[in-house]
């Protein structure tokens, strides 16, 4: 898309208002002003973010950062518009799936050689993998700094578990999927379901869990990516389906729920276990009725303990006018100590290894020890690097998975559709 409109030029002439170009006015002898678009929304997280920004501003009078509040639901529209329109924030908070798309369109700054070694070494390679993308011209670059990750854990009603005599797994000895299946059977009785699978947005979750059995759903050969749904991919799908329709230990009416929606039922004892993202502990802690006992169970194990993960990231747009200063700010914002604060505020896992040993996030209270320990098995989600994944997800995978889990189509039919229609979609991105 071009950057100038012929009509805009006419309008300018008509208005004769001697306009200036570019909205980010800065004088060359004042402090450099950076816009930091943050998506923090939990109370503690917003406080932590703002506090860190203030600390920076005090220590760096010549680089002043303005905290701009965004919201998760709308940020990508905002960003696309600002990237295309040319008025970009200097640092923005987002998650890596969005970055994949932005990177391939050339919107982002490659941070590979610009980050200090201390930051680079503090964050494990598996996390860096989540922000390494193709930049649209065949080269790989690092397009963000990952700082928060989410693992899939199980939040369970402790009382019901104890009553059913089920073994409580630990990070050192997690449940296998089989054990999980057995436990749900024991817990399903007297109007209680063993488990509720909130699957309103099923795709990311299923694909991340599929890595437990080595299922990657995509394979790249000869530069072309195609969808594959073999036995490894089908494993997790089959097991969830069985819980729903064969064992009947999972509530089918919970399928269409968003992640937090099963909570009222959970507190009322309608479901004993919820396989959800680790951040949901925050809501559980906040909303649980007095005296409700709950535990965080570590991620399940299939043939491996690996789970796919994406990360929350901070990135710099290619069009930013203060790239160096933006990187400096990011390096401070995401150092070990600060990452621990951010993780605590959002109830997620920090990528920084220094932060991972911070006492504030390794206590047994609210399952922090289990949560933080689960970070070690996270690998990069396989769908992250696939061009066209978003379209595949919304147009093919979401309806197909929803239909399969609702028992409207069989596993083989679902697999067939995922592959056939999926490849049609992907092909458009590989022309």
């Amino acid at each position: 898309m071009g950057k100038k409109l012929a009509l805009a030029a006419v309008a300018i002439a008509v208005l004769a208002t001697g306009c200036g170009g570019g909205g980010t006015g800065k004088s060359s002898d004042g402090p450099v002003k950076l816009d930091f678009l943050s998506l923090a929304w939990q109370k503690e997280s917003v406080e932590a973010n703002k506090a860190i920004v203030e600390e920076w501003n005090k220590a760096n009078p010549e680089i002043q950062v303005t905290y701009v509040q965004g919201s998760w639901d709308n940020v990508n529209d905002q960003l696309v518009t600002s990237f295309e329109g040319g008025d970009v924030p200097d640092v923005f908070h987002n998650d890596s799936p969005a970055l994949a798309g932005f990177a391939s369109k050339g919107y982002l700054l490659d941070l590979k050689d610009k980050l200090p070694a201390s930051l680079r070494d503090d964050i494990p390679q598996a996390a860096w993998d989540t922000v390494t993308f193709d930049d649209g011209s065949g080269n790989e670059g690092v397009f963000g700094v990952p700082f928060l990750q989410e693992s899939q854990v199980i939040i369970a009603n402790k009382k019901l578990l104890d009553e059913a005599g089920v073994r409580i797994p630990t990070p050192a000895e997690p449940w296998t999927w089989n054990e999980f299946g057995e436990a749900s059977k024991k817990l399903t009785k007297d109007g209680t379901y063993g488990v509720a699978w909130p699957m309103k947005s099923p795709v990311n979750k299923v694909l991340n869990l599929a890595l437990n059995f080595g299922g990657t759903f995509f394979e790249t050969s000869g530069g072309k990516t195609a969808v594959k749904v073999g036995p490894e991919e089908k494993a997790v799908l089959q097991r969830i389906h069985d819980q729903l329709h064969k064992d009947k230990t999972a509530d089918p009416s919970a399928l269409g729920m968003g992640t937090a929606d099963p909570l009222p039922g959970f507190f009322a004892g309608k479901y004993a276990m919820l396989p959800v993202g680790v951040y949901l502990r925050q809501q559980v802690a906040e909303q649980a009725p007095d005296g409700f006992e709950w535990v965080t169970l570590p991620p399940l194990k299939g043939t491996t303990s690996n789970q796919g993960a994406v990360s929350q990231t901070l990135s710099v747009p290619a069009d930013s006018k203060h790239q160096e200063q933006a990187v400096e700010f990011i390096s401070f914002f995401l150092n070990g100590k600060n990452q621990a604060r951010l993780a605590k505020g959002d109830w997620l896992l920090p990528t920084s290894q220094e932060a991972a040993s911070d006492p504030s996030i390794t206590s047994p209270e609210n399952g922090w020890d289990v949560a933080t320990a689960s970070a070690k098995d996270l690998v990069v989600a396989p769908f992250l690097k696939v061009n066209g994944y978003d379209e595949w997800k919304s147009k093919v995978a979401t309806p197909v998975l929803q239909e399969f889990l609702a028992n409207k189509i069989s596993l083989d039919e679902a697999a067939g559709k995922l592959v056939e229609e999926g490849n049609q979609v992907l092909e458009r991105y590989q022309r």
Partner: protein
Amino acid sequence: MTAVATGRHRRGMSRQTRELWVLLLPALVPVLVFSVGPLLYGIGLAFTDAQGGRNRVTGFSGLDNFARLFTDSMFWQSMQVGLIWAVSVTVLQFLAGLGLALLLNERLALRGVARVLALVPWAMPPVVIGLMWRLVYHPDAGIVNSTLGTDINWLADFSWALPAVVLMGVWSGMPQTTVVLLAGLQNVPKELYEAGAIDGAGTWNRFRDITLPQLRPVIVAITSLNFVWNFNQFSLVYVLTQGGPGGRTRLPMLFAYEEAFQCGFFGYAASLGVTIMIVVLGLLGVYLWRQLREAS
């Protein structure tokens, strides 16, 4: 009739034309800059292969986008959903709005308070409306399920999602419709009703033979406007269902949004926009033409 001219140009502008331009100028400037310009640009995009990307070069592609649209099953699905949605919501809005307007026209106590309360949906920011209705339809804690005693996940159910969303659409559009119809009702001369009563006509006959014909222009106006607004609805439905499940509530605008913002296919999305425009204008044209014929 010398005060009004036909505004035709003659050598050296006539006074009328000059006046015309003076009157129009303040409106013309913002409209050209902020509306016409972007509109033409948006329409023009439909004939290119524009995609999101910092270094992309956009090329002319003629009618390629339209050809692809024609074979895109999701396009047809969204048009179907859009039509069902627009017709249902418009008709229901009209019927419900008419009922309420008739009631508000009567001499009931606390009329003023009722009139303000009837406008609550209009006063609520659309952002909040969507969030609120999501809670209303919540399978466990929602009002609908607790009142009806059912256990259906309305917004995720393949058959119930669209009706559920239609209900919300009717709810949010009722105030405007009610207000316009009420104004129309109050414009009906009382003498007509009195004459009808003297002739022995009952309530229903009076309604059918006096009220409805008098209201006709108003009805045509508000239903056609509602139809256009409803067909082009976006944010309200997006917040609620994001077009799911399985595309059952993917209105044409949601489809265009997905293509443009989520996939970056601006050219394709623009061709969708142009097509929507043509369809709506076409339907509107047919409707208005028939109404005009019947009126005369």
